[in-house]
């Protein structure tokens, strides 16, 4: 039953169409990039982009380059640091704001004033403040995820159906019990959503921060994927730019998927019948 199901998705019309569409996309890209040689004139915009085949070749070469993997490692480390810091501070803060009205009145307006400032605008201030480059990147990364996480947790906790509280109360729950067994699980789905979105933003911010601040203290190959891209640009190896872009895409996608799977594991009641 399962195998037939798998076969069905693999050979379904949708998959077929996806393959066709992606192939057409790649072929067009190849033609566009090679237009100078093949057609005798340069197609605007795409003409400047390295061809997929060249990118693939560059990628294969990079796979055995430890510097490339070092970039992966550095970026992932920064993302994880910023992300976990955001979760660690953001979730309790959001919950506390939802539960305590006074604190909410105190902190929420200030929070709303700071929120519209794009995280990247904090980069210079962060570099001035933190003693090391590494910390300043981590801080900006943290900010990127922090606001999203807090807003999601707060929204989730505030939209809990009042009947849940009422029935818990009428069955004799204490305050702490209501918090632990009603508020927390009821907010879990929004925590999952918030962290998945936050993860996406984190990757965006890391790349930008690495580009702007010119890589980590190590410089050169130690600077993470964002720096890898910038370095490739400065060094004129344009194929590597695209490799870097795809790598970050894969990394971001994998992290978000991982979070969703984890989230699904923590919220079993949300599964479809």
């Amino acid at each position, binding site marked *: 039953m399962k195998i037939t199901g798998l076969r069905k998705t693999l050979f379904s019309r949708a998959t077929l169409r996806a393959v066709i569409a992606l192939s057409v996309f790649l072929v067009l890209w190849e033609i566009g990039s090679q237009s100078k040689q093949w057609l005798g004139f340069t197609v605007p915009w795409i003409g400047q982009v390295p061809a997929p085949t060249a990118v693939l070749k560059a990628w294969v070469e990079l796979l055995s380059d430890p510097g490339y993997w070092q970039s992966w490692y550095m970026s992932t480390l920064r993302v994880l640091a910023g992300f976990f810091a955001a979760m660690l501070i953001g979730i309790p803060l959001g919950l506390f704001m939802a539960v305590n009205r006074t604190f909410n009145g105190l902190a929420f307006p200030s929070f709303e004033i700071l929120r519209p400032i794009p995280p990247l605008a904090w980069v210079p201030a962060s570099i*001035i403040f933190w003693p090391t480059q590494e910390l300043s990147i981590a801080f900006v990364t943290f900010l990127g995820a922090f606001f999203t996480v807090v807003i999601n947790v707060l929204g989730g906790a505030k939209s809990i159906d009042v009947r849940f509280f009422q029935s818990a109360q009428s069955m004799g729950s204490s305050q702490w019990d209501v918090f632990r067994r009603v508020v927390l699980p009821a907010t879990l789905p929004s925590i999952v959503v918030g962290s998945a979105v936050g993860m996406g933003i984190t990757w965006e911010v890391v790349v930008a921060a690495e580009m702007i601040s010119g890589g980590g203290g190590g410089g050169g190959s130690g600077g993470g994927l964002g720096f890898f891209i910038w370095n490739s640009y400065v060094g004129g190896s344009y194929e590597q730019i695209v490799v870097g872009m795809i790598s970050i895409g894969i990394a971001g996608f994998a992290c978000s998927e991982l979070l969703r799977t984890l989230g699904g594991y923590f919220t079993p009641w949300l599964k479809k019948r």
Partner: protein
Amino acid sequence: MDQLVTLLKRAMPFQMVPDDTLKAIAGLAKYESHAQGDVIYHIGDYADDIYIVSSGSVQHTLGIGTQATHLDKTMRSGDVFGWAAVLENQRSRLAKTVCLERTELIRINGEDLINLFKASPALGDVVMSRFATMINKEFTLPEAVAAQVPHFTQAQATMATMATGLTLTMFRVSQWLKSPKPYLMLIGFSILLGIWYFTVEVWKLPRFEDMPGLTVVVKELFSKDPTYGLSLYTPEYYQHVWVSLRRIGIAFFLATILGVPLGLFLGWSKTFREYVFPVFETLRPIPILAWVPLAILMFSGSETPVIYLTFLASFFATALNTMLGVETIDESYSRAASCLGASKWQTFREVIVPGAMPFIFTGLQISIGVAWFSLVAGEMVSGQFGLGYVINTSYTMVRYPTIVIGMVTLGAVGYTTSAMVRMAGDYMMQWRVRELALGGR
């Protein structure tokens, strides 16, 4: 007698009444005939009977003298009028009623009729509810008539609505002021600014002392002769804001006019989605900032790459949300449209587009947010002007207070643009605003 019964049966309130009850009603009825021009009753007369027109026609006139207006509807055979007779709190006639030709009427004492129905409350309710519907119909019809009745003057009604609207707002404001919220907010702000002020300028904590201080920033911002060259009085400040706004404007506009239709088609046509969406999804996880070098390669100059980056971020958010919006439209809406004879294209225009509107505007809100996000990044990396550029050059040229000026301005401008998008959404979705206003009272 039977003739009376047949006649009663034609009158709207009595259509469902069983024959034996009708006979009882007929027993209460008096039959009378009038010549043309006869006045049945005047305004203010005591209302005792209700009337059913047997033949001929009568006309109602509301108001007196020059204010007098004829009611649009002329009462003819089978129509009922004079219902004030069955009301308890309105026992005087509201109109003057005149026979337009030779007219035969059946009159029934209101009190007697009520008493008859009291005997069978079930039946009474049905008849009374029909009466109610009828009164409803006839007395909500002409606006001209409503304007004549002193209580319902159009202008007064508008005034009244406005007044309640205003009092409601005032009420809400006073409630808000009575609640601890505004004071907590002020305390919160003071704490935030206090921390900034004390840590940087008073206590000069390590690391903090390098940061631009509160007073320095404020002085700079309001100085006519700024130390670091940027304040509310320098034209450069407005030039930077304008450049950023123009970039956002172009990018956001392009993203909307391309992203919304793409999203609509993605959601609407399954075939289109199956072909296009995979490509879309493959490109989407790549962070916008990773496009920077490639964008510089693809587009010459420094302006286009920045706009391109901003556009790209907005575009993905808009298209994706629009698609989600179309997918969440309840199937029964498009089914209802096809039932009612709408073609495929009409369904798209009349159902899919307005149905997806709430999601489109959510998408646009997100889109303007990410547009600012990537604009700042783009301006920091390349670009000649703009708020991101201000922040970055202030850093490299060690003019720290202007970093904060840039950040604060960014926050304010970003907030304003997203508020504008929200207002545009409210304007275009009146139905939603009114629905929500009703629910969230």
